[in-house]
């Protein structure tokens, strides 16, 4: 029990590291994912092909391999960044493939008739997109994005093994100090539960506010 009280700052640092990693990687994943989704529904074939390739490759790559490639491979090109930035890059790009698919299927759930009706009212492409298609797509896309971001928070644990300060990594110094390993892990588990429950609470609010009533 005293593992937590004795090492509160260590746990706190790890916890904040996980939160930081999750927030930045989520923002990157959302930005890249939405861009790739736009590519995948674009009328331009080469952009569609690029989006498809991005999603297919990243979705079938083990995240550990991606971390390995980014953390140890990119420095070979003379690109030296802090470990946390590399981790955000790997985690964000990986998750962007799943966000892209969620957004794309959200756009595809909008019935074709909605767009046709908007155009027959004389709306321009921007108006159709901004006032008709995206608001509807956004509603149906909230729950899948929520569970993707929860998965991201859980996957951030991998970063700890690549010298990034985060929650799972705290077990190592505590283990060396001779604390009960069981309790160490219980508090780590509680930390992850706090992060994932917070994300699902945020998305529950979003869904209540904007989601499609089913």
């Amino acid at each position, binding site marked *: 029990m005293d593992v937590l009280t004795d090492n509160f700052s260590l746990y706190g640092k790890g916890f904040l590291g996980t939160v930081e990693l999750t927030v930045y990687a989520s923002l990157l994943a959302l930005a890249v994912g939405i861009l790739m989704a736009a590519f995948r*529904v674009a*009328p*331009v074939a*080469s*952009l569609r092909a*690029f989006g498809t390739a991005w999603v*297919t*490759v990243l*979705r*079938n*790559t*083990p*995240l*550990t*391999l991606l971390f*390995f*490639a980014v953390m*140890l*491979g990119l420095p*070979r*090109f*003379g690109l030296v960044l802090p470990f946390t930035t590399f981790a955000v890059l790997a985690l964000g790009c990986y*998750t962007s493939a*799943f966000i892209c698919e*969620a957004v794309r*299927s959200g*756009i*595809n759930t909008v019935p*074709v*008739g909605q*767009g*046709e009706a908007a155009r027959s009212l004389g709306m321009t*492409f921007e108006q*159709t*997109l901004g006032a*008709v*298609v995206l608001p509807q797509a956004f509603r149906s896309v909230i729950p*899948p994005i929520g*569970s*993707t971001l*929860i*998965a*991201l928070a*859980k*996957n*951030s*644990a*991998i970063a700890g*093994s690549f010298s990034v300060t985060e929650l*799972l990594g705290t*077990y190592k110094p505590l*283990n060396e100090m001779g604390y009960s*390993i*069981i309790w160490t*892990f219980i508090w*780590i*588990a509680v930390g*992850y*539960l706090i992060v*994932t429950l917070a994300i699902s609470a945020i998305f529950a609010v979003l869904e209540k506010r904007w989601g499609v009533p089913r």
Partner: protein
Amino acid sequence: MTTALYDVAGPRTRRRHRIYGVAATAVLLALIAWVVYLLVDTGQFAAEKWAPFTYKGIQELLLRGLANTLKAFALAAVFSLVLGAVLAAGRLSEHRPVRWLSTLVVEFFRAMPVLVMIFFVFVALKVQPLPALVTGLTLYNGSVLAEVFRAGVNAVDRGQREAAYSLGMRKTAVMTYVLVPQGVRAMLPAIISQLVVALKDTSLGFLITYEEFLHAGKLIASNLDYDLPFIPVVMVISPIYIGMCMLLSWFANWVAKRERRSVKTGQMTVAAAEPAAPMPGDTRT
């Protein structure tokens, strides 16, 4: 392709799209050319860096790693299917304590990062890397599969269960002869997609020094004699990993298409295998 986004393009729009297409292609090609230039410029294609792959010992090291990855995957897949079946049976049980216990187990292991479980088993219980990896993957994927199985059984039309009971079948017979075969058949694509997640997650074994495929790659990559061939190793390893996962995802899609056509599942909505593989850690069912 029709979406709500745009109509079939007319001649002027088609011309405009062609111009966009040429511009986008040019930008993408420039991007690829830049990456290739970087690779050449930093000497990633130097013969010295690729030399290790010509040695028999190194090839065997890689193959051993691949075999270990597949071994971990096979064990994890079999055990998670068994655990998933047990937990699903528990969650569908008529006895309240059994139901509660299984729900607790399933919810807990779905909420935990799989890596935390692997490390817990590896560090706290002090077991070998392979059992630790397989245990972690089994607990996580078993819990997710339990929900898949349960969703499948619950999705079977109510009339099937009622008809079976009215024929005088006991609950075990109803489950094993009527509900499970139909439920599993409908959920087969989702089950295979979850196995893709298990296959991808075997690479977590790398982090607990299990001698799997990525570990073999790391050994080669950190060899000074070959001038640290990180990029060549990544270029050799990733197509194999991605290929294996794509093969399995493709199989899930094939099964989904086949099941959708099959008469035996005519009454069921077959789970979509699209998006092909869920994200590791994504516990939606």
